[in-house]
C-alpha cells in the first residue's frame, strides 16, 4: 500500500493528533492513504470515532514501539 502522507503527532496531546490528521486527510485525494503516528492514549478511541463520524476509512489501528499507528483512507 502506497502511503501518500505521513504525520508524526508523537508527544502531542488531544486534540492535536486528530486535528493534524484531519488537516492531512484534506490534502490528499479520495482513496489515498495517510499514516498518523501518535502517543496520546486517547487517540485510539478518538480516531475510531472520527473515522465513523467523517466516513473516512480507518484501515489500520494498532500499537507498536510504544506508539499508536493509524492508517486512514480518504473517502
Amino acid at each position: 500500500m502506497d502511503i501518500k502522507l505521513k504525520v508524526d503527532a508523537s508527544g502531542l496531546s488531544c486534540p492535536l493528533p486528530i486535528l493534524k490528521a484531519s488537516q492531512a486527510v484534506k490534502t490528499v485525494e479520495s482513496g489515498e492513504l495517510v499514516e498518523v503516528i501518535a502517543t496520546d492514549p486517547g487517540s485510539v478511541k478518538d480516531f475510531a470515532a472520527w473515522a465513523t463520524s467523517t466516513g473516512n476509512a480507518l484501515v489500520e489501528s494498532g500499537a507498536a514501539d510504544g506508539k499508536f499507528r493509524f492508517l486512514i483512507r480518504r473517502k
Partner: protein
Amino acid sequence: MDETVSIVLFSGTDDKLAAAATLAAGAAALGRPVKIFLQYWGLEAFRADRIMSDHGLVPEAGAAGRAAVDAAAKAGQAHWAETLRMAKELGEVDIQACSASMDLLKLKQADLDPMVDGVEGVAAFYINAGEGQIIFI
C-alpha cells in the same frame, strides 16, 4: 439532529480557554459547525495586543497545576489560540464577540485578534445555535 456546537466562552484564564479550544477543534475535526460566543473575560483574552500573554489559571490549579501546564507547553502542546486557528482553517468555526461585553470593556473589533469574525447580540447567538448543544465555559 442539529450538529452545530455552540460554546459560550466567558472565562479568560488560559486553562479554560484551552478547554474551549479543544472542544471547538474536536467538533471541527468531526465536520460539525462550531459557534463561539465571547463574553466578559473570554472576550478580553482575544485582545490582539494580549492574546499570547499569560492569562493565568483558575485558582484550583495551584502551583502543581501551573507546573503541569508549563511542562505541557514546553513539550510542544499548542497554545489555545493556535489550536483555534487550526480549527478555523480545518472546518466551519465562527467566533463572535458579545456586543454588551464589547461595550463593557470599551473594545472595538479592530482591538481584537483577526480570528474573531464579528460582533453580535445574544438573540443572534441563540438563532445561530439552532437546536444544537450550547456549552458554557
